[in-house]
């Protein structure tokens, strides 16, 4: 049901309904252009649509952070199923069971850190939409997708460290963290590698890739 029951979604629906009523009334009854009609058209063509546009943008921004949005493309179905599986032990699934991360699990982990993280992540998401609808991914089978598609760049460890601070004792008390500090900082070793905390999604790498 999309985001109709969120505050932004509800505001979009209400303001759009009011504006549409005004516009339909004008189209059907064609009243003379009196100051009252001008004012009504100002509400129907500028004020209410402006509120609807702002609210629908807000609603869209919220919606695009939800895992069900990412999972609405068939190539992401298995990722979403694994995320929602309470028995799964994958890194992504375990993280999504946190009540803080869960509602926006894909976005929280995949959004880049920093001031431009939010808009850059949204732009990357737009590229995914482009590749899916115009780049041919829509017709790919899930098997082909799992076998051939990999992340565009290595997953940055800074994204993990948005929550898992590298300065706390709980992090520094782990020998491997200290001995690999430079490699972790330079992203030469991934937190989500098979020998460390495990791959995030169980099918994001083949057995051959994992054994390397």
């Amino acid at each position, binding site marked *: 049901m999309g985001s109709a029951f969120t505050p932004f979604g509800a505001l979009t629906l209400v303001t759009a309904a009011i504006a549409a009523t005004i516009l339909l009334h004008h189209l059907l009854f064609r009243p003379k*252009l009196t100051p009252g009609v001008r004012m009504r058209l100002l509400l129907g063509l500028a004020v209410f649509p402006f509120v609807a546009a702002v609210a629908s*943008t807000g609603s*869209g921004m919220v*919606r695009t952070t939800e895992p069900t949005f990412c999972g609405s493309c068939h190539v992401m179905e298995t990722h979403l199923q694994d995320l929602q599986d309470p028995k799964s032990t994958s890194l992504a699934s375990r993280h999504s069971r946190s009540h803080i991360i869960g509602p926006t699990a894909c976005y929280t982990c995949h959004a880049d850190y920093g001031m431009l993280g939010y808009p850059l992540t949204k732009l990357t998401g737009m590229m995914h939409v482009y590749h899916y609808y115009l780049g041919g991914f829509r017709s790919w089978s899930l098997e082909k997708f799992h076998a051939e598609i990999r992340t565009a760049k290595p997953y940055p460890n800074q994204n993990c460290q948005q929550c898992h601070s590298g300065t706390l004792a709980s992090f520094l008390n782990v020998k491997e963290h200290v001995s690999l500090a430079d490699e972790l900082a330079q992203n030469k070793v991934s937190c989500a590698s098979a020998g460390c905390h495990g791959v995030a999604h169980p099918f994001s790498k083949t057995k051959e890739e994992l054994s390397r």
Partner: protein
Amino acid sequence: MMTRLLRLLARWPTERMLRIACVLGLFALALMVTGVLLGTPLPVVGAMSVAQGFGVLACLLFGLSIAADVASRRP
């Protein structure tokens, strides 16, 4: 310059342009509502881009039509 602009606006087909603005506005609102109700990638992207383009166009047509109406009523 101002006189030319007023003369140009006086020829603007106000009623017709207002009706076009209403249709564009309705189309934009429909796209926004679809984006909210369906919540899948294409409708959401459409609501945040195409719908806003149509909405701005409708608003511009409305502004021009009102300006034209005012200009045509000038003595």
